[in-house]
């Protein structure tokens, strides 16, 4: 009995031990470092940041914490994968949320290496508090606004004037969220337009039923059909590949060009790789990925 019991105990311990030992950590196939600079885009002259020789010599594994506005979710996901493929010792962890939430977290000493905000105001919140130097943030991409409605278009929205129709259920983002602030600016622009009228802004704001905490919530609630319309970025509307929403374009004259700044956090423990990430985003490859997602690249 005792020997059988001992045997069972041994079996269990062996099972636990085998589960715990790393099953041969996936060693990247030995690729000469020079090949890592080759990119998949057919550009003959890819202006890609060369890997500094200092970190080309078997660097230790590091993690980069990138805080990015939620509208960047898709594009930065792809950028992260491409960056990790080029620098295999780097793992990127993304924190996607409303830029105002990210700024608050960074000011509360959250571990962050890079901050990509959807507007300059939230970047200023961080530079004023000191974790990013004022001269560091650079614009890396632009975005525009678009009005969306559920596929079934229950309120029969055909023109921008319809957003002021009484009884319409409109969802915007809160004014502290960049896209919410941009939407309010669009309404200011529109009020100066003769065809929409001076009361446009007040009438539209009367239709708002909820001010959401990030742009994705606006998109989801319109997709679900719970609201008649919403204002989001053109990039968010572009992520709707199953056509749950219809889009109503806002003319450039009234539209707001959203400027997204990116910056390395001053006290990042991985300054060189954080800068390499920022450089990648600003490079031809990074801008190509952003353009694929509907963003407007920086000239």
């Amino acid at each position, binding site marked *: 009995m005792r020997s059988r019991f001992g045997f069972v105990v041994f079996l269990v311990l062996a099972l636990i031990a085998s589960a715990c030992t790393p099953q041969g950590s996936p060693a990247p196939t030995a690729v000469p470092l020079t090949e890592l600079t080759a990119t998949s885009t057919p550009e003959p002259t890819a202006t890609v940041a060369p890997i500094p020789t200092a970190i080309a010599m078997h660097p230790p594994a590091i993690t980069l914490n990138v805080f990015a506005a939620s509208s960047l979710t898709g594009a930065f996901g792809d950028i992260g994968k491409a960056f990790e493929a080029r620098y295999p010792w780097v793992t990127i962890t993304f924190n996607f949320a409303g830029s105002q939430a990210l700024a*608050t977290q960074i000011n509360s000493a959250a571990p962050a290496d890079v901050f990509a905000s959807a507007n300059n105001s939230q970047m200023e919140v961080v530079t004023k508090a000191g974790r990013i130097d004022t001269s560091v943030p650079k614009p890396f991409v632009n975005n525009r606004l678009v009005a969306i409605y559920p596929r079934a278009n229950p309120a029969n929205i055909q023109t921008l004037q319809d957003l002021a129709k009484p009884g319409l259920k409109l969802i915007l983002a809160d004014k502290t969220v960049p896209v919410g602030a941009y939407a309010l600016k669009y309404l200011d622009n529109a009020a100066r337009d003769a065809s929409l009228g001076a009361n446009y802004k007040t009438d539209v704001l009367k239709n708002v039923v909820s001010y959401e905490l990030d742009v994705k919530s606006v998109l989801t609630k319109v997709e679900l059909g719970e609201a008649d319309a919403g204002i989001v970025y053109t990039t968010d509307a572009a992520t709707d590949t199953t056509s749950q929403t219809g889009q109503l374009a806002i003319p450039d004259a009234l539209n707001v060009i959203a400027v997204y700044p990116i910056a390395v956090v001053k006290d990042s423990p991985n300054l060189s790789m954080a800068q390499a990430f920022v450089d990648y985003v600003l490079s031809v490859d990074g801008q190509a990925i952003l353009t694929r997602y509907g963003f407007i690249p920086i000239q």
Partner: protein
Amino acid sequence: MVEQDIVVEDRAATRKGARALPSGRWAKNAWRLSVLPLLAFFLIPIVVIFTRTTPSRILASLSDPQVYQGLAVSLKTTLISLGLILVLGTPLAYLIGRFKFKLKNLVETLVDLPTVLPPSVAGLALLLAFGRTGPIGSVLSHWGVTLAFTPAAVVMAQIFIASPYYIRSASIGFGSIEDEYMQAAELDGAGPWQLFRYIILPMARYALLSGGVMSWARALGEFGATIMFAGNFLGRTQTMPLAIYLGFESNLEAALTLSVILVGISCCSLILIRIITSRMSSKLE
């Protein structure tokens, strides 16, 4: 002979131990120090909230719309929720507390479910069910009734999350009433309403009260389901927790003031529950 020596030595050892009793007592009670970290962990954050603002700043910020509108929405909705929880929850609690029936396990699990469910899941579920594209919501919107993004949605989210606390406490209170009292009253000719008003309610009142206070406090703190189902609109659906969350990003004074108020209310609720339950246990003795 050897045994006697050992016994004598043992007695000497205990006598020695008796003289060394102070260190012995310390050794016995030293484990109590291990409770301090957790207690401090609870106490320090709560105290810090009060130290980050002053009474004069609190009074000044009471005129901020984000503060008094948040307070107004919270108080209005939680009082309506509490009323509905008491009215709708009491029969259910009575059923669970005093009767055995076939589906009792299922019913009890269903009643406990909202407490284990993450609030954001609850909010999403409410939106999918009662939003205008949901099975119930689409019928209601035919008759012109909208629930999502209204104070009604806030009330519904609060009831969903908070009623299990009342129902559980009330069912225990109802279950503890001795059958003899009920039978004696019925023998004396008491009808169902008289039974409820003169026997059941008074005998279970402490459980009902403490359950009610608990569920009201829980409804007051509700956030995840509210933001999903009711959205966020100042003065209409922006409750105190939501105002605090937003204030943290843009209006720290408002967030601190509302936090102080919420902590104060929570503390008072708990003290109230303690008083009620201690009265209850002293009555039992």
